[in-house]
């Protein structure tokens, strides 16, 4: 699986929410795009990930 451009391996089927928790992302403060499609926050728990997915995980930072 690719996460923010980095290749990583996931062993088992895992929900997006679990993945974010395990990896140390703040799920409340992130937005996620899977394979180019935005995953609404309310679907984080039911959205299952597989090894060929591409994720973009983004958050707010300071900027003009």
């Amino acid at each position, binding site marked *: 699986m690719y996460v923010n451009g980095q290749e990583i391996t996931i062993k088992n089927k895992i929900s997006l929410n679990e993945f974010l928790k395990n990896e140390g992302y703040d799920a409340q403060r992130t937005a996620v795009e899977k394979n180019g499609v*935005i995953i609404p926050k309310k679907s984080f728990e039911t959205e299952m990930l597989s090894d060929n997915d591409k994720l973009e995980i983004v958050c707010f930072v300071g900027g003009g």
Partner: protein
Amino acid sequence: MKDTLVIGNKEFNSRFILGSGKFSLEMTKIVIENGGVEMATLALRRANTGGKENILDYIPKGITLLPNTSGARNAQEAVRIARLARELGCGDFVKIEVINDSKYLLPDNYETIKATEILAKEGFIVMPYMYPDLTAARNMADAGAAAVMPLGAPIGSNKGLLTKDFIKILVDEIDLPVIVDAGIGRPSQACEAMELGVSAVMANTAVATANDVGMMASSFKLAIEAGRKAWLAGLGRVLEYEAEASSPLTGFLED
């Protein structure tokens, strides 16, 4: 007299919009407070793991967040960033920024108009950053923009109101808030922009690169308020070629 700035569905007492880049997280809060800021921009970037501190924890409650689409090189990328930003649940405001010129960081008005149209239809309150071109501003207004944000000078340059005459044209012709976005470097330039009749001034680098960041934020607040009052008061006229005594021309003492 009530004098508020209305953008989209919100009313603001402050006309100082802060760009939140280049500050430490602690200073962000101080700058917002000292500047009397009610709206601040944010950028969207790839998140880090490990529960790093989030800027949202340092922005006081009640501040309207204005996510920008920095990093977008065309309309499609701007739309993608705006949609992701809205998923973060901080409202519908978006500052469209489409730049494909990495040297001068000048905005692409054409792509910006396209993004404005798409996002306005999706219910965003769209505030496009733009080069001050009247035709482009009209197109942005027609496309559903809630304000236009012409640049005063290149981003981060602190060079001031280089585009003054063209911003004045937008103020006169565009029936939307005109907000000077980039390039303002000094409080006096912010004041001058307000005297021209712009609705608000956005600043970031001017504050962030000052020696005393907190004090510069209060200075900008005062300058923007002063400029606004001057605009409301109506500036005194200018004489091109003559003088006019301010003191009475009668009752002089004699030798």
